[in-house]
């Protein structure tokens, strides 16, 4: 079976089955449109530890039918147990996986990444917990100028 070589940002080289990695639309288009077969494809935005998780996902879903064009409405935590297990990650790592899924154009992985983040937000009892869980920096509130600007804009909207 033909394979595709990838190099991560930390210079680790991977050789993957085409069938597996073609779940990534980016790689699929690069290989088929540009006829890149032998030369390793650099992935400057993806580290090897992130790619390992991505590959785990690709392996779980290698026999899935192609995703529908229009996303189906489903509950936030409506995902298979293997995916739930895979997404048991710290937010830092999960964010890297989401960014990698976005970059590599793997809609299914992006979808479960976003669902997991949404699910975690839903589990928070208040905004303090959201702030802690997602490392959201607490900034100073608005300056007087911003408030004035905001009020001006609002008066415009309200007429």
């Amino acid at each position, binding site marked *: 079976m033909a394979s595709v070589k990838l190099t991560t940002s930390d210079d680790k080289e991977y050789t993957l089955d085409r069938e597996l990695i073609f779940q990534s639309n980016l790689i699929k288009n690069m290989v088929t449109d540009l006829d890149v077969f032998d030369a390793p494809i650099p992935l400057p935005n993806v580290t090897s530890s992130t790619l390992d998780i991505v590959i785990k996902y690709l392996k779980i879903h290698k026999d899935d039918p192609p995703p529908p064009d*229009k*996303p189906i*409405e489903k509950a*936030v935590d409506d995902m298979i147990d293997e995916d739930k297990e895979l997404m048991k990650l710290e*937010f*830092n790592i999960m*964010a*890297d996986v*989401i*960014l990698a899924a*976005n970059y590599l154009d793997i809609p299914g992985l*992006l979808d479960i990444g*976003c*669902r997991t*983040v*949404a699910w975690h*937000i*839903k589990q*928070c009892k*208040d*905004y*303090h917990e*959201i*702030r802690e869980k*997602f*490392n*959201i*920096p*607490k*900034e*100073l*509130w*608005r300056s007087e100028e911003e*408030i004035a600007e905001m*009020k001006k804009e*609002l008066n415009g909207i*309200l007429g």
Partner: protein
Amino acid sequence: MNLENLPFDILYTIFQLLNGKDLLYLSLTNKYFYGLLSDFRFFGSCLKEDYHYGIWPSLHLIDNFLNDNLQVDLERISCLSNSAFEYNLITIQSDIFLHKFTILPPSKDVCMIIKQEVNELEMERIFRLRNLTALTIKLSSPTVIHMVIHQIHTLHLKELDLSECHLSDTALQILSFNLSRTALSILDCSKNIITDVGVAELSKHLPHTNIKELNLSMNYIRKEGLKMIVAALPNSLIKSLDISFNDFENQDLCILYKVLPETNLEILEGQITSEKSISAITRNLKSSKIKSINLEISKEYLEEFLQCIVLSKVKYLEFTGIEVPFKNESATILQNYINKLPVEHLKLNYCKIEEAHICRLLEQIPFNSKLKHLDIWGLDSVDVNIGKNIKNLSLDSLSINYSGMTDDALQDFAINMKLLKQLDLSGNSLTLVGILSFVNSIKHSTLYRLNLGFNIRESSELARARRKIREVLECNRIINVHV
């Protein structure tokens, strides 16, 4: 890595999976999320379900939902009680609500807009809120107004809006006397019955107050009153003074223009229709602190005025055009100066300019121009050419409103707008077909805010347009569209 570092389209996907309450909590985490989610159109576009203003994070519209969504209301108040808010704008609509606000802890600043009649007892209760920093009173009885002006120094207000309160000279005199004992920085006394007598007392106390913004428009102030207020300006902290629509002649404003360099004024409103006023402005503007100008000007003085603007620090320039419309000849003069102006935001209101002149004006704006925002309102007619002329512009936002623009012009906009982030074409003659084809062609543009309101008037067509636009943009990056 934190949540706000995720790209905007990913955040938008996540937001769409949350319900109103989750979004409300998220908006309270920090300024960035509050900024995003307090835009009610954006907030609405995130929620798949029908949403109620009651769960919108911003408190500005709180009066729209009271009484029928008390549960969320309470939740929001409990959020507020715990959050790091320093400032909240709260509108009081009902007695029950007023009562609930007394539960806010004293460390939070609260701004109240009272839009309905409150009685003395309720006013007493408001006075007990030690965290009240801004107060707007509408439709209240003279007794309540009397209470406010007498007890102002016992409150911790920074803003007070007493417009349309039948405020008399006597009331203003009492208020003025108490002002120096307050930390008030914004005072609005517009649309009242104030004359020179009240202004005399106010001017006397003004240098001893912290007031930075003062609105005395739509009263009965004459030239003598204007003189007194202007004389007090150099010793005061006032940055913005609105004294329009009073009982003095527009040319009397020269008294103000002459002292500009000695004042702290940053905003200037006025009318240049005489030799005297243009010479007062040209002599004094450069050495003043004025950053924002909003005025009417006759075409014979425009060139001289623009020459003076070129050397100034003015960032915002608006030609109001209500009494003196901005016409073709003025547009031609403006063409010659548009690339030299330091202005970042230019607004032409009620202009009577033909399309060819506007096109020529747009052509003169260089790619590296300082101008980032251009608003044009009420052009005579817009046909097809205007969209072709925006090709080389590096504007962030462009508004062309109430100018009879048709669908044909829209397509050129779609092709030629490159760096534009905000486009406002509300109030034109665009149809459903034109709007839909336009929205289809801008899916991948840099635009994030598009206003096409007041084009389609038919309510069934409007509903269809909103549904279709939502469908088209659903799977793409967020474009905030208002129809």
